[in-house]
């Protein structure tokens, strides 16, 4: 921590929040608000004269409320920067008549009640997101009585009580009588691995943290009996099993089973835990002096804003989604953004540090290259056909299109470096004036034409997104999963690229069945582009129905890159559906589409490519 404070190349902005991020990979503009601390942090020597005279006493957050601090305070003794901060919410007032004692006491005149927030506009090439997590609040698990029994504490509160720098200087006592407990029970998985309350995932660190806590207690108080109630002890890391074994060797009892509830003896304030030991099948009641709830880790509740600024998506567990869970674990889907620590998933210090170094190594590839190359699959707006409707601006998941302004004659503009090439804008454009480089409309028509050129009744045309569904097909192949041969895949970068006209074109050319397949919502490589896929397909279903074409002939599936099995199953189901489509039905569809249905939009794209198609 100290190294950060004194490193010449690190500009440390504490008490600060990112308010806006614009730009793109290699070229981000970031505005930061540094909230005032009302103290000149460079001049403050942390002498504590101000704190001594401050008359306001409030609970100390750092000590989990076990002790108090003043309204002017230093967060903790080793804080960096080593400077006091004035908590204006609790200060008696900036009016010198109201108080002003701290300003009088400060020899260096560091305190300025009129100090204002500062703004910084930063230009950076990369952004590393390390906003962390927060411990689970066990209030809702009322059976453990966290809010009812003082001697039930969380693992974070345990840390403060056992710490030499804590409120009781490391003399571990229980809150009700301030006596060192003779027995302590730890309850694991509080908030973790539960589909009903808390979170469904394993929080990764709680088992080993409890093992560590039991060893600390044993070290400080050899006669103290620790009991750990658990589902599974996950001691999977280097040196972890050793520590777990040591904990058992020194006499810590591990009981496989979580207590159903906790009751308190109103006189002694001792706690009774009833649990079934699932290894012996016996139900036993344990009396202990104190209970520690090993709380899980959950995503930060205030992370939504920064996620939106960086166009990041959460996975189903609420942590941020990586570019690839295995192969790009520290890269964000937004290029130039990297993850370090618990913002990505719960992890311990070692893994956080490892991931941070990995993130920097990845980011340094970009910084050291000095320039960034963008794959030439970006969108191009053909202004002459644009009607300023602004739909492209609204649908772009990356905010890569700048708004149009009809009055000023400004067309929407693609910021090429921010465009990831999903093609949602091209598919949604109301005048079809957007084309995708290397993934042109005409190229898709050409592919569909070729697929349906011979025996169209035998074919299923399947548009599959590059990242998930096409890769799911690859996975089926690698796994040698056999399925009917009738399907023909057409690769799109994103299912959001699949224009309604592509589908209609396939039907017009005699396809009995069309599939559009993309990533599951939480896996979408283009943030939320699949939501546009879904909306568009739903609209197309309605349209087909109105035209007298069975909507079932257009199928929509979400298949991930890992779901080879599902891919093969869907292909088998599609073949069943295809067999039920009759020649008359297809002929009728072709007639309907060639007579009645021709969107105005298709003309523009057709015109642009007419020269090339023979």
């Amino acid at each position: 921590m100290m190294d950060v404070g004194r490193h010449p190349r690190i500009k440390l902005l504490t008490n600060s929040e990112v308010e806006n991020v614009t730009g793109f990979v290699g070229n981000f503009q970031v505005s930061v608000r540094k909230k005032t601390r009302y103290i000149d942090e460079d001049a403050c020597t942390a002498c504590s004269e101000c704190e001594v005279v401050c008359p306001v006493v409030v609970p100390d957050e750092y000590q989990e409320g076990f002790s108090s601090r003043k309204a002017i305070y230093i967060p903790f003794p080793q804080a960096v920067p080593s400077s006091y901060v004035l908590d204006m919410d609790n200060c008696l007032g900036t009016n010198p008549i109201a108080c002003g004692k701290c300003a009088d006491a400060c020899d260096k005149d560091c305190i300025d009640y009129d100090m204002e927030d500062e703004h910084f506009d930063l230009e950076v090439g990369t952004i590393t997101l390390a906003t962390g997590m927060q411990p689970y609040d066990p209030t809702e698990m009322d059976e453990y009585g966290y809010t009812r029994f003082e001697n039930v504490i969380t693992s974070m509160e345990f840390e403060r009580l056992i710490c030499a720098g804590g409120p009781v200087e490391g003399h571990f006592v229980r809150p009700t009588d301030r006596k060192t407990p003779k027995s302590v029970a730890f309850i694991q998985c509080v908030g973790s691995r539960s589909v009903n309350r808390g979170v469904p995932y394993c929080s990764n660190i709680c088992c080993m943290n409890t093992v560590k806590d039991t060893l600390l207690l044993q070290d400080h108080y050899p006669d103290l009996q620790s009991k750990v109630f658990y589902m599974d002890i996950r001691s999977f890391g280097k040196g972890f099993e050793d520590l777990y074994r040591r904990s058992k060797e020194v006499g810590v009892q591990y009981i496989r089973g979580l207590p159903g509830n906790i009751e308190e003896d109103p006189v002694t304030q001792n706690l009774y835990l009833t649990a079934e030991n699932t290894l012996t099948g016996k139900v036993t009641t344990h009396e202990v002096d104190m209970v520690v709830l090993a709380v899980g880790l959950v995503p930060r509740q205030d992370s939504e804003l920064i996620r939106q600024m960086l166009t990041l998506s959460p996975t189903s567990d609420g942590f941020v989604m990586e570019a690839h869970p295995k192969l790009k674990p520290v890269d964000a889907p937004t290029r130039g953004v990297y993850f370090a620590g618990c913002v990505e998933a719960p992890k311990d210090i070692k893994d956080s540090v490892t991931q941070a170094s990995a993130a920097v190594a990845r980011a340094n590839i970009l910084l050291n290259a000095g320039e960034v190359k963008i794959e030439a699959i970006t969108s191009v707006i053909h202004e002459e056909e644009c009607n300023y409707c602004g739909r492209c601006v609204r649908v772009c998941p990356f905010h890569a299109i700048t708004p149009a302004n009809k009055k000023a004659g400004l067309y929407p503009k693609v910021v090429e470096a921010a465009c990831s090439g999903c093609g949602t804008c091209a598919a949604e454009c109301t005048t079809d004036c957007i084309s995708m480089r290397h993934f042109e409309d005409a190229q898709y028509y050409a592919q569909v034409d070729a697929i349906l050129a011979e025996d169209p009744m035998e074919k299923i045309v399947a548009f599959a997104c590059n990242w998930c569904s096409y890769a799911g097909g690859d996975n089926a192949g690698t796994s040698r999963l056999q399925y009917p041969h009738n399907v023909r895949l057409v690769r799109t970068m994103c299912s959001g690229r699949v224009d309604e006209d592509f589908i209609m074109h396939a039907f017009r050319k005699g396809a009995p069945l069309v599939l559009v397949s993309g990533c599951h919502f939480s896996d979408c490589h283009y943030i939320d582009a699949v939501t546009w896929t879904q909306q568009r397909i739903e609209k197309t279903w309605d349209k087909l129905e109105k035209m007298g074409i069975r909507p079932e002939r257009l199928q929509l599936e979400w298949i991930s890159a890992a779901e080879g099995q599902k891919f093969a199953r869907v292909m088998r189901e599609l073949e069943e559906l295809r067999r039920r489509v009759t020649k008359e039905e297809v002929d009728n569809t072709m007639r309907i589409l060639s007579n009645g249905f021709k969107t105005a939009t298709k003309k523009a794209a057709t015109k642009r490519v007419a020269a090339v198609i023979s």
Partner: protein
Amino acid sequence: MNGNGTNAEPEIRIGVFVCDCGLNIAGVVDTVAVAEYAKTLPDVVVVQGNKYTCADPGQNEIKRAIKEHNLNRVVVASCTPKIHEHTFRTCVAEAGLNPYLMEMANIREHCSWVHQQEKQPATRKAMDLVRSSVNRARLLQPQVEPTFPVTQAALVIGGGVAGIQAALDFADTGHQVYLVEKEPSIGGIMAAIDKTYPTMDCSI
């Protein structure tokens, strides 16, 4: 240079390279028949079969054919582009062709490996996939990948243990770093922990 002109393209000249992938493809798909079929497709001027197109001899044949037959489009019928698109893009670029003028047909993962008991239908499907790729290749245009300079500074958001490590690593590798922390001090949750596993030492 072939294929690098945009408007005045005189003639589309496509080379199709059909890969056996040992027996991975040829064990199911009649690759000779697919190659013969490819010769009948519009704008295809040369078709070659390779045992392993991705290996050096296979790649060299592509490069030689580009020069000999003045090719301005290349279709490789082999495996998934997710494995070898980069390989063949680099290959054609080395022969002077714009890398975006290369197209693949996935006749392994999406064909021979998943229709192992249906050799004839699999062969017909491979032909379809080649026809589809050739039709797309006829419309491919050369592309230039845009480049942008990179601002030589890094932002780290969050000053917990991960953010601290990231900031120090950036700084020690010579870059200017901004470390933004919401609280009045860095340290995060780590700073509130007494001892840490597995070393049982102090967190701060």
